[in-house]
């Protein structure tokens, strides 16, 4: 199966964007201020749209399936999303930081995917990149605001860094199927470190050093959180199989 690696890579991108969208969508109606509730829901919608494009393309290559079967009928062990995406929302600061760390990565990655030799992957990356640029801007501004805001907000951001940093190593530790991406992960990581450092500096936040990094999401070994996300996400399709909605 020559396409299997590509399919896995597409599923990895689809799962990551879907799960992060799911987490962000949990905020809808509960944000700290109306304008930001709308902004985060916007990001959830963008990510959901991206995930659908990846699922649809994967389904096309696989044949005999569709976006909903892929999202709703695969198990915890089949999901390939980044561990970072499934981490709980925590407070607004933790949600913001999770978004920034991921978006900064996605931006750099997709900047490379836009020249990929697979036309369709290219097209999806190009469309998504415009959205991602905005996600980076919005989330980095918030990281700065909260890091440099009050004593309380700074403490909360320090806590968020503690919680989330161990999941950033996985971004740059490619699974076998990621050879499809044709990306140099070492230079990607250097660039990511550089940018994150700049934002953290402006936010007066420290960049952690030499912390043990968790991994496994890309190959289906998740934290316990994912099972609950899928129980929620897949509930109707599992309860009423073979129905059209």
């Amino acid at each position, binding site marked *: 199966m020559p396409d299997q690696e590509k399919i896995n890579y597409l599923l990895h991108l689809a799962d990551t964007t879907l799960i992060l969208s799911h987490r962000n969508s949990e905020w809808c109606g*509960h944000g700290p201020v109306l304008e930001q509730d*709308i902004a985060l*829901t916007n990001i959830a919608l963008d990510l959901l749209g991206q995930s*659908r494009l990846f699922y649809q393309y994967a389904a096309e290559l696989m044949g005999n399936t569709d976006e909903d079967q892929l999202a709703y009928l695969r198990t915890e062990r089949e999901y390939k999303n980044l561990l970072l995406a499934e981490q709980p929302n925590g407070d607004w600061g933790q949600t913001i930081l999770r978004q920034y760390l991921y978006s900064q990565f996605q931006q750099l990655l997709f900047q490379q995917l836009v020249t990929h030799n697979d036309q369709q992957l290219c097209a999806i990356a190009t469309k998504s990149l415009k959205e991602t640029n905005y996600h980076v801007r919005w989330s980095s501004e918030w990281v700065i*605001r909260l890091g*440099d*805001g009050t004593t309380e*907000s700074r403490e909360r951001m320090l806590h968020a860094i503690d919680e989330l940093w161990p999941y950033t190593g996985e971004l740059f530790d490619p699974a076998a199927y990621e050879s499809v991406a044709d990306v140099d992960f070492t230079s990607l990581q250097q660039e990511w470190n550089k940018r994150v450092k700049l934002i953290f500096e402006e936010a007066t936040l420290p960049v952690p050093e030499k912390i043990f990094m968790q991994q496994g999401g890309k190959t289906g070994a998740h934290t316990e959180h994912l099972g609950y996300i899928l129980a929620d996400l897949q509930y109707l*399709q599992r309860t009423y199989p073979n129905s059209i*909605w």
Partner: protein
Amino acid sequence: MPVQDFEQLFQQKIDAEVKIEPKDWMPDAYRKTNIRQISQHAHSEIVGMLPEGNWITRAPSLKRKAILLAKVQDEAGHGLYLYSAAETLGMSRDEMINDLHSGKAKYSSIFNYPTLTWADIGAIGWLVDGAAIMNQVMLCRTSYGPYARAMVRICKEESFHQRQGFESLLVLSKGTPEQKAMCQDAINRWWWPALMMFGPKDSESTNSDQSMKWKIKRKSNDELRQNFVDMIAEQVKVLGMTLPDPALKWNEERKHYDFGEINWEEFWNVVKGNGPCNKQRLEARRKAHENGRWVREAAMAHAAKLAERRKQEAA
């Protein structure tokens, strides 16, 4: 000029269909009525996000999830426009939100009912947004300019919501026996609360006469409710479902549907805070506001620091 003359001029403007704008003179009661109504409307949009938000993570397909997320986001946008419209009358958004949280300000009782199944999301779009549109189409011509203009924008999106809700029920109505039953059950539960959205009967309604004279309202509660019943009684046939009212019957003489008596005891009970979800809804809003306090404070503190730094750089 004595106040009576101002009042006369004001009424002449209203009668001549000239919109009242924020800087225009207006009777105190007109200002208060508008603040009360517009802020109540804004609160309804925001509290209304909760019952529907309840199904975002569980929507049964990615397409339905995207539609629902976008819809709930629209409602937040409506809340924003309406808070801005109310602010033109001299009350800040913070004050309005405090009144909501203290229980002083009301919001539409419909959102104190729970969304128990996925079909409730379709039923809300079809019946609740549908009932809201009846009211809001009329409000596009309300006499206070900023409110009327906000309503024009909002109405377009609301009719979109209604069509999407209906379409989602249509799919269920053609689905498996379980889906059909889910669809009928949701209609059964949402029908009467939707009828209550139009408020008390005209004979019982206290503020109606003055509001009509000032053209804040242009149709009475009973008129709007009748229009709604006539519309839905036809649409439900397309779904192959029924409305839970044995008295519902076309009246050839009146050219309207007759319908049964609303349970007014339930209506007043929910208004007084005893609906199935009154507590949870207010609690969720208060909690969001409380949990957001440090975020808002940090944003202000950072903005102040930035301004200070710029000042020093300039000096």
